[in-house]
């Protein structure tokens, strides 16, 4: 099942089957709940870095901000569980990519969209997702995946609207 890449040296291992990956992800999600009492997440780390960097660089403005103030009132939140988890996530994904010959520096979507448009869309998409994650109080991981495993109403509302919006927007905007 290994394939030679055009450069002749790269051996790319196939992805896990969705069933195998799903079982592995379910076990990791369970481990997270058993260890910490909550599920996995992602966007919360960005929020804590924004709050922590704000506290370090612009303490008055950060302490005056009604959203960030509660996060920094008991010290800098950068050392929270979720920031360690996302740091681990970056490391774990890099290990997997290197082990499977799937690490390649590239601007993915450059060929389909052109580099300028791809960069603008990535920035715009990230901005919308970052804002949306704060409105929802979580993202696909923290609210959708982790919440659904504990029968959260918000999680299923989120997943339904998330999919509907993705389907709709991808009809009108060409993605990667």
């Amino acid at each position: 099942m290994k394939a030679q890449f055009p450069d002749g040296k790269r051996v790319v291992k196939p992805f896990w089957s969705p069933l195998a990956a799903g079982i592995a992800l379910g076990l990791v999600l369970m481990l997270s709940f058993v260890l910490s009492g909550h599920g996995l997440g992602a966007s919360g780390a960005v929020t804590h870095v924004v709050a922590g960097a704000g506290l370090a660089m612009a303490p008055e403005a950060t302490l005056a901000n009604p959203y960030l103030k509660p996060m920094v009132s008991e010290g800098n939140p950068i050392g929270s569980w979720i920031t360690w988890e996302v740091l681990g996530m970056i490391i774990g994904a890099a290990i997997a990519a290197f082990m499977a010959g799937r690490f390649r520096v590239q601007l993915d979507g450059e060929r389909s969209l052109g580099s300028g448009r791809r960069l603008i869309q990535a920035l715009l998409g990230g901005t919308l997702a970052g804002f949306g994650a704060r409105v929802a109080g979580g993202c696909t991981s923290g609210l959708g995946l982790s919440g659904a495993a504990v029968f959260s109403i918000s999680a299923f509302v989120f997943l339904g609207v998330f999919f509907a919006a993705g389907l709709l927007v991808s009809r009108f905007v060409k993605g990667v």
Partner: protein
Amino acid sequence: MFPLHESGMVSGLVCGVLFGFVLENAGFGSPSKLTGQFRLTDWSVFKVMFTAIVLAAVGLWGMRVVGLMAPDTLFVPQALVMASAVGGALIGAGFAIGGYCPGTSMVGMSSGRLDALVFVVGLFIGTTAFAGFYGDAIRSMMAIGEMIDGDTFADVYGIADPIMLGIMAACLVGIFYLGSWFERRGPGPVTAEQAVAGAE
């Protein structure tokens, strides 16, 4: 008795490393694979997510039933219907336009994708913008549709957990059948070679 309430560095790093390792192996660092879910050509996102949700839900429920897990200790997000819907719409739109969601952009970055790095920069801009705009208008919008009876289907609608598990398991089977049907009709799921080569 679980959970252990370990919310320190080691617990975070261990969960995170495993999370990132699994997501990359699922192919979720590739924006063309991820957005294939919205084009209905690659159903890996829903297949993987719902398998994980059902497995974890059954496992956590089972641990509670046999007395290994303390009842009402696991974190459940607050039931805010409008906030979840508006946030879900923005993340779905951002995903379709930018190719990632917050977690998968970290995975894309770790597999060498510069567009994922730019998406992460966008996450910081969006988060900072939200903090800047946060006030009475956003707060009252987020409070619309708040469930006062609780946060779960059992609390609010009286749907017992085993019935929820049955419904979710049926949805899982449906997603695998429907997804595989769509995948057979189209070009098929994005392979690792295609993902590494980049979207065409």
